[in-house]
């Protein structure tokens, strides 16, 4: 898919909307930043490449005016889920879809080049070439992609008004999606408990995970900060941090679209998406439900069956 094609669509859409949300170059060559385009001159600066990781659909519910947004396949699930839950007015949104073969995790790239400041980035043939003061390094995108890309089922957006490129099919087996969860479950109970305690202990409660999450609808009225009800204190103990992340995960049960934003934005590198992914794997298993794929669906926690096929009464 060429950036030119994308710009063409942006220019076409611009007159009908207040803003087109896309990406532009950030403070250095590896950081791409969201770009709220208002004019044709802005559109000239738009970019699309494997560094366009951020899920731009997450801005939609906070915008009142008609907006166009550029989405990858994974990001489009956010829009589907918004439609399910009535969080956006579909007629007020123009979706520019991009078929995507995988993006790059900036954290993984930085690690691969020892966190040297990046002087230049080039792409060639499923590879990313990083130039630092220590020289050039070529990395296969498949090796530095976020985990979500490894099992991507929706390379082409599920909903769109314009598609910049030709639709592509997923090549990844559907069973692979929750393999990491199954692998993790092989650890003993104690190991898992210690793992989460250690990880969540790093949390500084900056709430980047919450604010970046497209499905975290409470946002400014988050229960993590209110004193009425007083769910959690402001103390910095493991219990309080764990509680916050449990709240986040449980509120997303059957709603998490697995965009991975929570994990991407965490400045402390905590695998915050793990809990949500686990819940999703259970939603799949219990209700054969995948969030964010069908606008007509109802999130499984918002409904029930009188006879639940897969929930059996537990014996003591």
């Amino acid at each position: 898919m060429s950036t030119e094609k994308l710009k063409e669509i942006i220019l076409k859409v611009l007159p009908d909307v207040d803003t087109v949300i896309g990406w532009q170059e950030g403070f250095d060559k590896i950081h791409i930043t969201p770009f709220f385009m208002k004019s044709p001159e802005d559109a000239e600066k738009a970019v699309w490449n494997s560094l366009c990781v951020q899920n731009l659909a997450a801005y939609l519910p906070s915008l009142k005016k008609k907006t166009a947004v550029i989405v990858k396949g994974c990001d489009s699930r956010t829009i589907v889920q918004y439609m399910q839950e009535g969080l956006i007015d579909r007629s007020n949104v123009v979706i520019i879809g991009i078929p995507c073969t995988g993006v790059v995790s900036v954290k993984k790239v930085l690690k691969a080049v020892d966190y040297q400041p990046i002087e230049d980035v080039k792409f060639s043939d499923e590879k990313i070439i990083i130039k630092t003061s220590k020289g050039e390094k070529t990395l296969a995108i498949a090796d530095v992609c976020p985990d979500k890309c490894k099992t991507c089922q929706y390379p082409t957006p599920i909903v769109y008004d314009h598609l910049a490129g030709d639709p592509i099919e997923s090549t990844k087996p559907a069973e692979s999606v929750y393999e990491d969860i199954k692998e993790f479950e092989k650890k003993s109970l104690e190991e898992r408990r210690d793992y989460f305690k250690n990880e969540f202990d790093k949390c500084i409660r900056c709430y980047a995970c919450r604010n970046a999450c497209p499905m975290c609808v409470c946002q400014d009225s988050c229960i993590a900060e209110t004193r009425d009800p007083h769910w959690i204190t402001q103390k910095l103990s493991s219990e309080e941090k764990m509680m916050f992340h449990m709240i986040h995960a449980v509120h997303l049960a059957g709603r998490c679209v697995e965009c991975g934003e929570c994990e991407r934005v965490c400045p402390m590198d905590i695998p915050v998406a793990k809990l949500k992914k686990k819940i999703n794997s259970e939603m799949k298993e219990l209700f054969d439900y995948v969030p964010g794929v069908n606008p007509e669906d109802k999130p499984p926690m918002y409904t029930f069956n009188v006879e639940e096929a897969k929930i059996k009464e537990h014996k003591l």
Partner: protein
Amino acid sequence: MSDVGTKELRIVGFLCNWCSYGGADTAGVGRFKQPTDLRIIRVPCSGRVDPLFVVRALLTGADGVLVSGCHPRDCHYSEGNYYARRRLEMLRRLLQFMGIDEKRFHYTWVSASEGQKWQQVVTDFTKQVHELGPLHDKKEKAD
């Protein structure tokens, strides 16, 4: 000392007002012998039990949590327990994933007339939690 023979643990029970709380009452009136580890919190309906009640209890000192509501099809509000069933099943699996033994958490249905069943549930669950022992180190236990 708990009735099951070891030091008393903390078990929190969320009981729906219409069935299970009545069931517990029936068991009490019938003078059925029960372990004393359970602290009961009465809720309007099992559907009122936010999974986070359970999490909060387990994180801040409880060794086990029991939720009990009306039998399916018998909910006082017709469908509260159906929602509860989905949520609590999800929670049960999440707890196990996070390293909290799923045996520390149990949800079940007991009607107001089932005093005997209530006695059985409490006794068995208490026994089950005692087999696992305390969840928290003493020093970690919140007041």
